[in-house]
């Protein structure tokens, strides 16, 4: 089952633990600038914190632009083969997400390798902003939100243990086609 590293920016606090643990795991140093994931924080307009990390594209622009065929897709993971890489930075420039990184103490550009199937950043993210999910689950949040937006649901109010509660349900007899709407 192939899995994807996905980002939920709304949950990100900008703590950068993902950066720290990535650099430690791959290079054995405390140096967020040697991490293959980087949190961008913008404020106050627009206001967002979002980790940028390789999406392991199936048709990677970095590979397309690599003049020495140093980039390969191996079992779903986009890899830079150091012995073929001339460190021209074409991949860094061509990645539409900015998810390939460079550091002057590291001979070739570096990027997310999913830690061999157990991404450390996902494990250490204290907010659930980084997730490693099966591909067939991708889009699930939107699917659930879409169902919840389904209009014409009936509502019943009731009291349970002194607390007022609401239950929403879709009633038979009110069916209509929702084709084309959300």
């Amino acid at each position, binding site marked *: 089952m192939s899995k994807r590293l996905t980002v939920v920016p709304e949950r990100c606090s900008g*703590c950068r633990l993902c950066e720290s643990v990535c650099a430690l795991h791959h290079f*054995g140093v405390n140096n967020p600038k040697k991490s293959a994931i980087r949190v961008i924080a913008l404020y106050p307009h627009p206001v967002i914190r979002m980790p940028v990390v390789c999406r392991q594209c199936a048709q990677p622009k970095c590979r397309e632009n690599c003049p020495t065929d140093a980039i390969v897709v191996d079992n779903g993971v986009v890899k830079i083969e150091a012995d073929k890489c001339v460190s021209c930075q074409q991949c860094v420039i061509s990645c539409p997400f900015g998810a390939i990184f460079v550091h002057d103490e590291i001979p070739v550009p570096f990027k997310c390798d999913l830690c061999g199937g157990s991404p450390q950043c996902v494990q250490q993210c204290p907010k659930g902003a980084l997730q490693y999910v099966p591909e067939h689950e991708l889009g699930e949040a939107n699917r659930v939100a879409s169902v919840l937006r389904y209009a014409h649901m009936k509502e019943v109010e009731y009291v349970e243990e002194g607390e007022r509660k609401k239950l929403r349900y879709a009633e038979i007899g009110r069916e209509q086609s929702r084709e084309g709407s959300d």
Partner: protein
Amino acid sequence: MVPFGEEFALKYVGGRGFGAKLLFDQLPKIKDPLGPENILVVAPGPLTGLYLPGGSKTHFVSLAPLTGIYGDSNMGGNFGTELRQAGYDALVIAGRADELSYVWIDEDEVEVVPAPELAGNGCLETDRMVKDRLQSEEVRVAAIGPGGENLVRFATINADWSRNAGRCGMGAVLGSKNVKAIAVRGGKDMPVADVGALRLLTDRSMKELSSHPLFGFWQQQGLMSVVDYVNSAGVLPTRNYSENVFEEAEQIDGFKMEKEYKIGDTACFGCPMSCGNICLVKNGKYKGTIAEGPEYETACMLGSNLGVGDFAAILKGNQLCDDLGIDTISSGNLIGVLIEAVETGLLRPADVDGMTLAWGDDELINTLLEKIARREGVGDVLAGGSRAVAAHWPQLAPLMVQVKGMEQSAYDGRSTISMALAYGTCDIGAHHNRAWTVGKELEAGASWQAEDRVDLVIYHQTIRPLFDMLGVCRLPWIELGYDENRYAEFYSIVTGVPHTLDDLLARSREVWDLTRLISATRGVSRKDDYPPPRMMERAVEKGPYAGRVVDRGEYDEMLDLYYQKRGWSEDGKPAEGREKDFRDRLS
């Protein structure tokens, strides 16, 4: 660039410790905190930037413009990590630039760049302009606003939108040096003696913290959860500390925030607790106001202490203070004095630019914040801090809640007398972070003797400043019970030199003596270690502690004991010979 010797590094640890020693060495040359001979030390700690819980802190140490004595203040966020990645454990800013400038530190290249176009801009706009000029979103900028430029005695230094070195007037020190901002960028490794051990200990620590039963609640509310607790306990300063319970507390607490205003979470570098809250006002006259905050102190000092029961108004005040670069605690405290003075007839509206100040008038309060930062009209008087206000209007002295010239923060000292001692003896003035004994005394204080209170205050004043030497945040320990011995483990792992917590506490105690020595040289003695008159002479008006004052006899007994236990004279001077201990010139 000067390398620290190992002896210096181990003796003073870092952060506040480095700052205190560097300031002590410079002290004989300093005439005026705002003179070119004063120095501003900017120092992260040896744990800042590392993979461990809350290694985010940067400390700013200087002879304080607000008090004229030893001063320090710190901020979280990302600035300290970047400074360490640029290769620095401390930055010393001395002298004065010819024109308004920013300091640009690009690893080994340091320059002072003239930038007169930054004049008058808020902290956020300055952050933006410097980033644009350097063409980088990833540099870190610490900036002052109009408050610092205009030498407001409680001006802040701001970074990462809303992380502030808030107290003591560190922003005015930068302003006096004609430095509008410090920009830094770095990519160096932060050395650790045993990286493997660090990884193991932190992996384990993160699991412990995140499995704490209050972890989720803490992420939701952060320090805003304190409003409800403190109000219920009857220690929430209200209307210039005259009452201790605020009838509209529910309108300004963490639950209100969560329900109506919070749109996101923020965290400082390397911290899983994300206590920062991004709040947005979606309706009403403050619609569009956005800030990372408020935190407890601001909710109280710009809220209950001014009779403001409107969360949106507090958020607006928070946003203004962040951008203007002035301290919310000192500002709220001084505005409270002014409102009470007008309400009780000690001042006439004509004395305060014609404003009919009243409790809860948020629009006039926000006007005052602007006036302070720009030193306009009555704002010019307030901008000098408590001492300047009392000198200008001697009749207001009994209303002022300050120690050593620093406005007291948002916990009352009458309901828990150990907190009065904590404020009285705090080395920078009436600040809560060196010893916060409220919770313990409320819980168990009924049977305490003077000695129990003194011991607790000294223990707090020893362990809490240790965090400020290490460069870590103390909240994992305070709020989620994270084992304090872990910090000694981290320090040992990082330095490669085994240390116990007691070893480090002994260093912290030394630094406390050092900061006292600095302040004693500037004239501080026993007379400056008393709570403000309001705490000693005027009883709490409402709440469970109504009728309470700090009894002078009881306080004197504690103070005698405090000096004895510190090895200081009856007048509060560190023992003879202590000066010599610090006089060594370590490279």
